[in-house]
C-alpha cells in the first residue's frame, strides 16, 4: 500500500463523496446514452437471481394461497351462492357458444375460409416483480434452452398481459399493459372503432384516440387490433370503465396484480420490434 501523509489521506477522504456524486451524474448520462448497457446488466442480474426466486416462489405461493384460503373461509356461504348463480348463467352461455361455434364451422366450410395459423406458445412461471416504483413488469423463468424472443405476446388464462421486452439466457421480462410505456392498438368490440390503449402505471390503462362520433360504452369489450402488425386481432384485453370524471379506461381481464403463470405466444409478428442490430436506435421506446 502506498504511504500517504495524514493530510493527504484526509483530503482524499473528503474528496470521495463529491467525486462520487459527480460520478452518479456520469452514470445517468451513460444510462441515457447507451440504453442497451443497462438492459444487459439488468437481465444478467435477473438471470443470476432467477433460480433463487424460482426456488422460493413455490413455498411463498403456498403461504399466500393458505392465507387467501383462510380469509376465504369467512365468506364461503355467500361465495357459494354467488358461484351457483354464476354457474347457471355460464351454462346458458355455454349452450349459446356451442351453437354459435357449430354455425361458424358450417359457414367457414361453405366459404372456404382460410383459417388463421395456430400460434405456438410456451408456458412460464412468474418468478418476480420486474417493475419498480415507476415501471410495471414481471420476470419469467423460461429455462436455459428457451426460444422466447423479444416482442412475443404474454397472456394469462383471462386476457392480454403484455409483451416480452427483454430476454436473457433463462429469464424474460414482460412489460405489462399497465406500464407507462405501453401503447396498444385496440378495437372496441361493439362499435368496431379503433383506439389506442395507453398505460398509466395505474391499475387501469386509459383509452385514447377513438374516432369522432363513437363513445366507448361502459362495459364494452376491448380486444387487440392487428394494426401495426404488433398483435394478432381479437385477443381479449378487458372491458371499458368510465372514471368518475368520465375518462374511459380499460379494466384488464388478466389478473395483473397476481400473475403466477403466463403463456407466451409466438405469432411471428415483428411489427414493432426492430431486428437486433438496429436496437440501439429504438431501445428507448418499447
Amino acid at each position: 500500500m502506498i504511504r500517504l501523509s495524514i493530510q493527504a489521506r484526509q483530503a482524499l477522504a473528503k474528496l470521495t463523496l463529491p467525486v462520487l456524486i459527480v460520478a452518479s451524474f456520469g452514470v445517468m448520462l451513460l444510462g441515457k446514452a447507451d440504453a442497451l448497457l443497462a438492459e444487459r446488466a439488468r437481465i444478467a442480474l435477473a438471470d443470476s437471481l432467477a433460480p433463487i426466486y424460482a426456488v422460493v416462489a413455490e413455498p411463498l405461493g403456498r403461504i399466500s394461497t393458505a392465507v387467501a384460503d383462510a380469509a376465504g373461509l369467512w365468506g364461503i356461504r355467500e361465495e357459494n351462492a354467488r358461484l351457483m348463480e354464476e354457474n347457471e348463467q355460464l351454462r346458458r352461455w355455454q349452450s349459446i357458444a356451442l351453437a354459435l361455434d357449430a354455425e361458424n364451422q358450417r359457414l367457414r366450410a361453405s366459404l372456404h375460409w382460410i383459417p388463421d395459423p395456430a400460434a405456438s406458445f410456451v408456458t412460464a412461471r412468474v418468478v418476480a416483480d420486474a417493475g419498480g416504483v415507476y415501471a410495471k413488469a414481471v420476470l419469467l423463468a423460461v429455462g436455459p434452452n428457451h426460444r422466447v424472443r423479444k416482442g412475443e405476446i404474454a397472456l394469462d388464462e383471462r386476457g392480454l398481459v403484455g409483451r416480452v421486452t427483454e430476454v436473457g439466457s433463462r429469464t424474460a421480462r414482460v412489460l405489462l399493459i399497465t406500464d407507462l410505456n405501453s401503447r396498444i392498438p385496440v378495437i372496441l368490440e361493439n362499435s368496431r372503432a379503433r383506439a389506442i390503449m395507453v398505460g398509466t402505471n395505474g391499475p387501469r390503462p386509459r383509452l385514447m384516440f377513438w374516432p369522432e362520433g363513437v363513445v366507448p360504452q361502459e362495459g364494452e369489450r376491448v380486444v387487440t387490433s392487428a394494426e401495426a402488425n404488433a398483435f394478432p386481432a381479437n385477443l381479449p384485453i378487458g372491458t371499458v370503465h368510465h372514471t368518475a370524471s368520465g375518462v374511459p379506461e380499460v379494466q384488464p381481464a388478466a389478473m395483473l396484480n397476481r400473475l403466477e403463470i403466463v403463456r407466451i405466444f409466438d405469432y411471428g409478428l415483428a411489427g414493432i420490434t426492430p431486428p437486433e442490430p438496429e436496437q440501439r436506435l429504438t431501445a428507448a421506446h418499447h
Partner: protein
Amino acid sequence: MARTDQTPGIRPRPTIGRRLDVISRHAFPASTTVLVMLLTEMPTGIRGQATLLPAVTLACVWFWSVFRPTAMSPPVVFLIGLLLDLLGYQPLGVGVFILLVAHAVALRCRYWLAPRGFALLWAVFAAVSVVDAALTWLLTVLLTWRLIAPAPVVFQAALTAALYPAIAIPLARAHRSIADPERA
C-alpha cells in the same frame, strides 16, 4: 488493520479466525443491506411491493451512515445505489445519486443527531425520505422525459418513513453486538 498501529495496548493474536471475524463485522452493514434488498424482490405478491426496495435500501444506508460511516463508505453507497437502480428498474444513476445525498446528510449531522435519541433521528429520516422520493420522481421524469403522476412520491415517502423503526431496531441491536468490530 489500520487500527493496530495507531492504538497501543495488548490485544489477542491476529489468527485467521479472528481476522475473518473482524472482516465479517466490517462487512456486516453492506452485506446485510444487499441481502435485505434481494429479499424485498422475492415473489410474495404483496401489493406495492416495488416500493419496498427503495424504502429498505434508504433506511439501511441511512442507519449505517449515521452510526458506522467507516463501514458504509461513499464507494459502498455508490455500489448499493447501482444495485438499487438495476433491481428497481429505475433510470441508471438515480438511486446512486439519492443514496449519496442521504449519505452526505447523515455524515453532516451524525454528531449532532446520534446522541439525541431515536425520535429525532426518525423525524430527520422522514424529511430525508420525502426529499429522496421527490428527487427520484424528478430525475425519473427528466431522464425518461415523460410526465409521470406524482402520486407514488407520497406513498414512497410515507412507506419509507413508516418502515424505518422495523429496520433500525434490529440493526441497532446488531450494531451493538454481532456487527461491532471492537468485540471481535
